[in-house]
């Protein structure tokens, strides 16, 4: 009997040898695993923001363009993944030191080994996270194209923007480029992502000119209402949720839980933007405007994006409040100078992006700056204008670069293959002219727009 038992135990030991030698994972492995999981979650949240952009852009435009507006977002996201993999990532984060201040070089057709870890995070995840940011910037730029650009121009602009323009700015501020060495603070991309996208949108809308029917002969503006305000509101919610991946995910690590603080300031900025925008539109126009309020929420988010890790809670509220008011006047301003911006990209992402970046120079604290390890405290905390100067320089240089580059590309498109659809195509809608089918086939009959 005893013999039997000993034999069985011995056999079991042979079957499960690991039991005898099992080992706990090292602290390093565990740390990397948790960070990876967090960044993966954040990547998914940021990618899901494309759903927000789809709803935002379709909701703010007319029914006859809905299928085109929604579909092209998915298509360009797909194209952007390939371009960013082939060249974009290499220009942003590729490591060749000789020209490193201006542009990264290397890692083209990016091929990470199966588990290559850099700074406690698999490079595959770093790539995915960065790609999702690039696509957000691209979708912001589409705001300036809305309802009148040719499909081919989307194709070409995606290649250039994702391949070259965006990666260069990302390199300057995040990839160890010259602005990064200057100490420019842009935690999650008020300048890199939002301002870049908005400036590209600006170049596009200036070259495209206003949509048919936006302005009267005497220069007064007409309101071209979007076809679904519920879509627009849902889009803001989706973007808001996604923004926690965007900002809090930019810590790239669980660490001591600092990402929680980043999410906290983000929430305050968004709330303040919503409240300020609703109140200012009510005070000035006599009506509490929903579109303005939605824009204010996004503007609060855009503004706090640069500063979420560098400022105290009260400052986050102030930054959001200012953004909410700013977006209202900015939209009025662009309309007045006859820049037709159907999605308010320039006000929400441009004006608020600039404000958010500059706000660091005012509100950043030394304590938080040293925690993040970028730059120093701003005017209020240190009494020094230095950080504000650095922030202003980064806005100016990045803005000017993106404007020049985007303008050049789009101008070439305009001069060669044409940028804007014909008047007839614009009137019947891009769903039909570019794709041959309406997004709302039951609501619209083919060709009815041309008479109406």
């Amino acid at each position, binding site marked *: 009997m005893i013999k039997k038992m000993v034999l069985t135990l011995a056999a079991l030991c042979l079957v499960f040898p690991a039991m005898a030698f099992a080992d706990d994972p090292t602290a390093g492995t565990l740390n990397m695993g948790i960070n990876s999981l967090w960044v993966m979650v954040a990547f998914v949240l940021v990618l899901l923001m494309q759903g927000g952009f789809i709803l935002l852009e379709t909701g703010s435009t007319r029914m006859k363009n809905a299928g085109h507006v929604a579909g092209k977002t998915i298509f360009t996201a797909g194209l952007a993944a390939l371009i960013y993999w082939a060249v974009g990532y290499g220009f942003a984060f590729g490591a060749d030191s000789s020209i490193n201040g201006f542009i990264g070089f290397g890692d083209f057709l990016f091929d990470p080994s199966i588990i290559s870890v850099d700074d406690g995070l698999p490079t595959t995840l770093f790539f995915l996270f960065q790609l999702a940011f690039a696509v957000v910037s691209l979708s912001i730029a589409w705001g300036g194209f809305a309802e009148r650009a040719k499909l081919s121009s989307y194709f070409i602009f995606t290649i250039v923007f994702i391949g070259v323009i965006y990666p260069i700015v990302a390199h300057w501020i995040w990839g160890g480029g010259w602005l990064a060495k200057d100490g420019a603070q842009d935690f999650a991309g008020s300048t890199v992502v939002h301002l870049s996208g908005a400036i590209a949108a600006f170049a596009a809308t200036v070259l495209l000119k206003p949509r048919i029917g936006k302005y009267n002969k005497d220069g*007064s503006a007409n309101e071209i209402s979007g076809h679904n305000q519920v879509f627009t509101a849902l889009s803001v919610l989706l973007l808001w949720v996604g923004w926690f991946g965007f900002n809090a995910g930019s810590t790239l690590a669980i660490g001591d839980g600092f990402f929680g603080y980043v999410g906290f300031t983000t929430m305050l900025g968004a709330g303040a933007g919503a409240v300020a925008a609703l109140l200012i539109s009510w005070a*000035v*126009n*006599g009506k509490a405007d929903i579109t303005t309020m939605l824009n204010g929420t996004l503007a609060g988010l855009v503004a706090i994006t640069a500063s979420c890790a560098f400022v105290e809670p009260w400052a986050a509220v102030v930054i959001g409040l200012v953004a909410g008011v700013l977006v209202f006047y900015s939209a009025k301003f662009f309309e007045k100078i006859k820049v037709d911006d159907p999605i308010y990209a320039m006000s929400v992402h441009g004006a608020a992006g600039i404000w958010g970046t500059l706000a660091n120079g005012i509100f950043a604290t030394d304590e938080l700056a040293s925690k993040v390890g970028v730059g120093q405290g701003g005017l209020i905390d240190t009494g020094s204008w230095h950080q504000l100067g650095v922030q202003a320089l980064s806005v100016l240089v990045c803005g000017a670069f993106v404007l020049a580059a985007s303008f050049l590309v789009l101008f070439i498109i305009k001069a060669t293959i044409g940028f804007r659809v014909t008047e007839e195509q614009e009137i019947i809608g891009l769903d039909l002219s570019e794709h041959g089918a309406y997004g709302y086939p039951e609501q619209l009959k083919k060709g009815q727009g041309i008479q109406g």
Partner: protein
Amino acid sequence: MGDPVRVQLLKQIGKADNVNVLRSLRDQVHEHMKGILQMSPVEQFNEQLNELHDSVICRSIILAEAEMARLGMGSPPVPYAYLLFGSGGRQEQTLSSDQDSGIVYEDSVMDSEEARAYFQQLTSNIVSILQQSGYPLCEGNVLSNNPEWCMSLTEWKVKLNDWFAEPAWEAVRYLLIMADGRSVYGDHRLAFELKDHYFNNVIEYPNITRRMLDNTMRHKVLLGLFGHLLKEQYGSDAGSLDIKYGAYIPLVNAIRLLALQAGIRDTSTLSRIRALAMHDQLLSEEAASYEQAFRLFLRLRLMTTEQNEDGLYANNGKLSSRSLSREMTEELKSSLRTGKRLQRKVFKRTTGRLR
């Protein structure tokens, strides 16, 4: 008064024997009054203009009656009063106002169907003659040729009782319209009796003023939080001021409500204000400031954009803010503040009374 052209026009209108002559006289009225608008004091201008409109309307009714006789339908079977509502009722018509009208006729002892048929035909003639003379139809179909607004005195009383007893949104709207009703032609006694009935009901249903307040308070004056003017944001009227709904109507509504509560039967806003002061419902200096504000709104309303649509005189009630001098803008702002103060007062008085 001392305006020979106008006296002459009144005389000619009183003698016009067909619709074409009437139309041409109405056009002359328009041209003449437009010409003297800038130099006349607004209250006097308004009175003269409304006297001319009244005479055109009365002449249209006489022509329509004659037409009925010519068609062999005889003369009116019972006495009736032709009622004007809206700006016509308040004697505040602009150069281009639309038709808002109704009829109340005496209860027929003989054949009520015959009376109904007669007035149906008569009113459709009247409305058509006025339309040919350039008065557009009321968009809400408050017109004498609408059977709902053309009834015998008893039918009217029943209808009023229903409205007072069941003050749904529509009923309250109709009651507000009735409040401005004025007999312009025919047997005024019928209109008085109808008004008697109306005001007895106002006393019997004190809650009605509360409902009227809810109905009229949605027209806000054109002042923003910082005391700035609220302008149209978009469209071909971008930059203009909605004088009709943002200045004139709020004041009309507020004063009407005070008048109803005080049992004052005048229909014109200025006489309502004076009567309110006389009955100690308003302090005299208060009344003076409301009068002054109202005169400005009347004047600006007369200046609003005219549109001639298919021969009909129309008006969108909007005024380009560029056409206002700096002093007038300041005056408008201060008058709007007065209007806002009045709105608050009416709100307090109406809600406070019921507590």
